[in-house]
């Protein structure tokens, strides 16, 4: 370890004593902020799609015209009850239907006067789902206007859209880490240029490349971690300020916790923020090391 400890003029091998190195923690903080929020966005998107899959993959909705007679309705329910793969069929009563439609139509719309179809919520067995084509044929023979809504095609589209979103977020994270590496390379090169005579002297006096690189690497790691922790803290505060990630990223609240702390109480949020800070530190460290070794290579 090369260090200087004599007297008032003591100093270390420099990194952080020039503008470029002072700028480094700020760049790292900004990139970790972006990458941290991007990472949380990734798990939020994944969580949303999984939740939708869980709730929609096992349910179907049957729409029956409002003027369907009670006898036909009972026939339909009996048919559904006998169909293999359908675990339950629940005819929504008008009050429940009104509650579902209220967010869309408002509280003052008289549903009695509108031709709102009757809805039957079907829970299907995911292990052995019903033959939907055959079921549609049978239903058509009883109520020709009945419509069986299968959510699964929509779900496949949502899943594909989510995957595209995840790819974009992953690219954002990769770009952030790339920018951290690039900033480190420029900062270290600037320092090496500024301190060329000292580094060459240390080399000529017999310091091994690894020992010289270690000085820069440790300093860079410190700067990277300072920036990384600051960026992660800023991302955390952003999540908290937005009222908890639960409302932002659709994470489930832990049992007994209020919704507002759902996101920040999720261990994955902490993991991603800590991981982003550590990853930034590692990227800075490796970039600094490679830059110094590459710079030293032409020296005999």
């Amino acid at each position: 370890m090369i260090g200087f400890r004599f007297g008032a003029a003591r100093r270390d091998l420099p990194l952080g004593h020039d503008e470029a190195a002072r700028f480094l923690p700020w760049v790292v903080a900004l990139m970790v902020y972006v990458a941290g929020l991007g990472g949380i966005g990734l798990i939020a998107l994944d969580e949303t799609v999984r939740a939708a899959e869980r709730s929609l993959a096992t349910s179907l909705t049957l729409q029956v015209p409002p003027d369907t007679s009670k006898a036909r309705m009972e026939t339909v329910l009996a048919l559904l009850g006998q169909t293999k793969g359908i675990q339950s069929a629940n005819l929504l009563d008008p009050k429940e239907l009104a509650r579902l439609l209220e967010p869309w139509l408002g509280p003052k719309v008289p549903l009695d006067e509108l031709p709102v179809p009757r809805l039957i919520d079907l829970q299907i067995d995911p292990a052995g789902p019903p033959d939907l084509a055959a079921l549609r044929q049978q239903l058509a023979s009883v109520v020709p206007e009945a419509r069986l809504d299968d959510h699964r095609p929509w779900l496949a589209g949502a899943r594909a859209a989510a995957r595209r979103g995840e790819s974009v977020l992953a690219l954002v994270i990769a770009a952030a880490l790339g920018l951290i590496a690039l900033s480190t390379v420029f900062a270290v090169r600037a320092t090496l240029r500024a301190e060329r005579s000292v580094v060459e002297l240390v080399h000529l006096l017999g310091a091994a490349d690894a020992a010289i690189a270690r000085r820069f690497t440790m300093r860079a790691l410190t700067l990277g971690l300072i920036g990384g922790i600051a960026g992660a803290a800023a991302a955390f505060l952003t999540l908290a300020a937005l009222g908890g990630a639960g409302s932002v990223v659709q994470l489930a609240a832990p049992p007994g916790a209020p919704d507002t702390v759902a996101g920040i109480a999720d261990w994955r949020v902490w993991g991603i923020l800590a991981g982003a800070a550590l990853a930034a530190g590692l990227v800075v460290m490796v970039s600094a090391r490679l830059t110094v070794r590459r710079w030293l290579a032409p020296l005999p």
Partner: protein
Amino acid sequence: MAVVSLEHIAKRSDTGAQILSDISLDLEPGGFYFLTGASGAGKTALLRIIHLAELPSRGTLTLFGANTAALDRDARAASRRRIGIVFQDLRLVDTMSAGDNVGLPLRIAGAPEPQIRANVLELLAWVGLADQAEAPAATLSGSDRRWLAVARAIIHRPELLIADEPTGNVDDETALLLVRAFEQINRLGTTVLIATSDTAFADRFKHRRFHLDHGMLLSDSGADAGPVPVQ
């Protein structure tokens, strides 16, 4: 076994100019040598090759018994740590204290801090700079800076000491004191090679002398020179 053995060493500049031509010589353990020649004769280039600061264009350099062409970077660094060097331009780090400058080779070698401190203070006292340990190198006089460079070159008890024009730009008395200091180090077993353009000054001492002229080793001389080692 010679400490340094040069066989047919040649060096060309990037522009193709011949700096050194077919240099062959041996530096024996415990020897004291002057390397003389006019400015531009190739003295510094030869010292830089011996110090592994530059690669020869041709020829073989054997240092401490090892062919340097076969050494990897870590081994070359390790060989440099066995050499003490006084650069022509001294190369002190002006922003560092005198003590930190002198202690640099020991820190590079990974010596423990108490040992570094003790050795630095002892050596600074030896060169008459005991009260300057904490002074920034930039504040020292030209003569003190030269002694500081000498102290830095010998603090780690090198097996080979190279000094490039250490007596240049100093008065005669200081130059004499410097050579006497190098002779004391030499008596402890260190091989010493001093480059100087002042041939008359070198002739005042009974040490073997190699003379370079336009990159060629012409002769060696000295009261105890023995046979001319030009091969």
